[in-house]
């Protein structure tokens, strides 16, 4: 497995290089010139030239690309064009708020989806199963924005159960502020995850070993919890694990609407301000997380399923 992982790590180099070309082209060749926005409405050609020199934008595209590759290797993306803050500091300060929202929401949502999926698998074909499936489809069809607007208005404004928006850096008090966005996160993701987990469960229900268990007289609940669940956990775990790295990057919409200063919010601000260094840093991190998530998933396959051998 070590050889396999090392080989996969080596494969990430050309992937990262390709991604670097795409990101660089998108922001340096297609997007607008950031100096115009940075200098505002009174900019003179001389000031624009000065700032372009200061930011290194007057260097050749090849030199700029070389700089970017250097930043990817050293993880030093410099300072934000917009706020002049060190990007590394911005990222480190954005991770805790993002995780404060994402981790509880992710755990609750995954557990809940698993429980509901097991129930509907147990009662498959019943009215309960149909109601849950219809409910899931309806839940999936509603935009996340609608949940946010409704939740904020009804639960925070009308009933006063939650603060409307905000965040507290205090490790305990912050949960007061992330409770409602976390609930919305759970609601938004529940439908799709219940359906996916239900499918994993039902895939197992049709297997020969289940038929054998039933033929041997095992109760339906024993078959479900002792055999089906154990085998269904293989795709469930891989499905869940691949999402974990992305929890760090937060949620664009939720963080923006609830004023949570996480990485999602930082990314949105960077896009609004043409803050290319921050956008490049965040895109690079997302790419690395994606590659890492895939690698982790592959590795976990062999851990949870002894039939899988990584070579």
């Amino acid at each position, binding site marked *: 497995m070590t050889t396999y992982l090392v080989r996969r790590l080596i494969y990430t180099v050309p992937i990262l290089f390709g991604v670097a070309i795409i990101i660089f082209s998108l922001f340096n060749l297609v997007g607008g010139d950031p100096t115009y926005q940075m*200098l505002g409405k009174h900019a003179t050609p001389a000031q624009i030239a000065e700032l372009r020199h200061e930011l290194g934008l007057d260097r050749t595209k090849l030199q700029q690309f070389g700089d970017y590759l250097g930043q990817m290797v050293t993880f030093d993306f410099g300072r934000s064009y917009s706020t002049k803050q060190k990007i590394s500091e911005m990222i480190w300060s954005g991770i805790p708020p993002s995780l404060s929202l994402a981790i509880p929401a992710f755990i609750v949502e995954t557990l809940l989806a698993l429980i509901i999926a097991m129930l509907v698998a147990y009662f498959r074909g019943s009215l309960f199963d149909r109601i849950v499936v219809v409910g899931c489809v309806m839940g999936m069809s509603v935009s996340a924005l609608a949940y946010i607007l409704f939740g904020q208005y009804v639960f925070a404004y009308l009933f006063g159960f939650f603060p409307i928006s*905000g965040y507290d850096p205090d490790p305990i008090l912050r949960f007061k502020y992330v409770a409602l966005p976390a609930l919305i996160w759970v609601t938004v993701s529940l439908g799709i995850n219940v359906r996916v987990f239900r499918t994993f469960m039902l895939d197992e229900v049709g297997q020969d070993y289940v038929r054998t268990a039933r033929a041997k007289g095992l109760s339906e609940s024993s078959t479900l919890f002792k055999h089906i669940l154990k085998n269904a956990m293989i795709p469930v775990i891989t499905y869940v694990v691949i999402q974990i790295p992305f929890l760090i990057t937060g949620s664009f919409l939720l963080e923006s609407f609830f004023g949570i200063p996480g990485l999602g919010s930082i990314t949105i601000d960077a896009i609004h301000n043409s803050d290319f260094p921050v956008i490049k840093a965040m895109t690079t991190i997302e790419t690395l997380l994606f590659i890492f998530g895939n690698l982790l998933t592959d590795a976990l396959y062999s851990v949870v399923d002894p039939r899988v051998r990584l070579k």
Partner: protein
Amino acid sequence: MLFKMAKARKAGVFFLAAAILAAPVGVAGCKKKRVLGNTLRVALRQKVRTIDPAHGGDYYSNVEVARAYEGLLRYNYLKRPYEIEPALAESMPEISKDGRVYTFRIKKGVRFQNDGCFPNAIGRELAASDFVYSFNRLLDPKEASENKWLFDGKVKEVKAVDAQTLTIRLTRPNAVFLHLLTMPGASVVAREAVETYGKDFAYHPVGTGAFQLDRFSPNQIVWIKNPSFRVERFPADVSGAGEDAGKPIPFAEKVIDDVIVEDQPAWLNFMQGNHDYLMKLPKDNVAAVWGADHKPTKELRDRRIDLLAAPAADFTYVAFNMEDPAVGGAKNRYLRQAMSLAYDEAPTIEKFYLGLAARAEFLVPPGIPGYDPSFKNPFRAYDLTKARAILERNGHPEGRGIPEITYETLSDSTQRQIAEYFQRSMAQLGVKIKISVATWPELLSRIRKKQPQMFGISWLYDYPDAENGYQLLYGRNESPGPNEANYKNARYDALYEKAAPMKDGPERRKLFAKMRELAVEDVPWIFGLHRMETRLTHHWTRNYKIHAFEHNVEKYLRVDVAWRDAEGGLAGR
């Protein structure tokens, strides 16, 4: 038994699920309204990029800059028309006869706030040399300041004659120079702070202003009253000063700025009483406060919320790129005139602004000296028949033979809808419009490179002087400068060069009127509208007066704390 167990297990699973779901409600439900005392709570509608005067180019950054910093001059908070008065200057400056040398006496006893960058962390006294340092810092190419334009090309030399005397020598007389000195970018900073904090100075403000930074985070900025702030008083010699006339300011001990970018949370927080006033009324909530009868709604009156409205110092317009062969130049003047006549602004004002705007006849908005309410732009009165006749006279009956024109605008829904309305209006004339949308950076980039054929945009005045509008059509200011239409008219330019250094008065207004005639005839823009600035204030918030150029209104605001507390207090953190 087995059935019972299965049932119990099932019930247990449901209970567990319900408990997991309900847990956050329990945590949040413990919320108790906490009385914050003499604290102002404000919603900022954009992220604050910096609290460095050299880089605060946008409105919200300037709001924060003005909390901590001050300049030589400021506008009186209550007087209208806007009137400049001394801030850190002892009095208004002496100006040499040739209008090139300004001599200021600096107020004595003004101290920078206490900070670790000073010996023993005690703020030192302000000196004229601090202004020399601050102004030269703006001009330093290494600083790449967004506010460099304030002095660039205008100031020849800044000199501290002694500790309290400052002279500023201009390259040529400049009628608006005093206005420039009121802007947050022209605030004074301490060299020690800049050198101690380096690039992080952006979040370590050390000024002489009314407030001192207590805590900065991207979503909340907390200020406390600067304990070493000198005695400043609420304006007294002005009508409308009210019961607080002559009282020491600031009234608030603390200001909490919550950064709330999205409309709904800003609106709901205000309506729940978490913020003392609301700026930038969300478009979707205008109907809740402003009825179709153009009066505040009953709900608003019942809740004793005041709606303040005053003309914003701005105007919107559709600019033609005068260098574009299809729409620019003298040969296409007839087309621009016809298009201007065919565009009716009235439905836009009703649909998008519920009447909280007025048609713009020209580039001087109401409230700016030189605004002429009697002036009617001959090409802005909606007249489709006349517009069609112009096209027919020039060989394009029903718009035949006119190539399709691309209209560029921002990608947000309101701007798209306005663009679609423009497209429909031009279709009535027979002129085909293709809409192209872009993000602000992309659109700005294209405008600066003279690429669009025409585009929708607006201008917010930097200072209350008509020159700030007229310079937008000055030939030498062509893109990437503020003359984004790239309009060039030698007569207009000559008149501008004559009028710009003059003080506002009949002679200058006569020159401006001639320039107006030229620009109106050439139609480099189709004028849109002047928006109204709106604020909502709770009845416990006192002294709010909309001021287009004062960024730190919190200095003047007083909260009737007892009243606010009696109504349940302010939700606190």
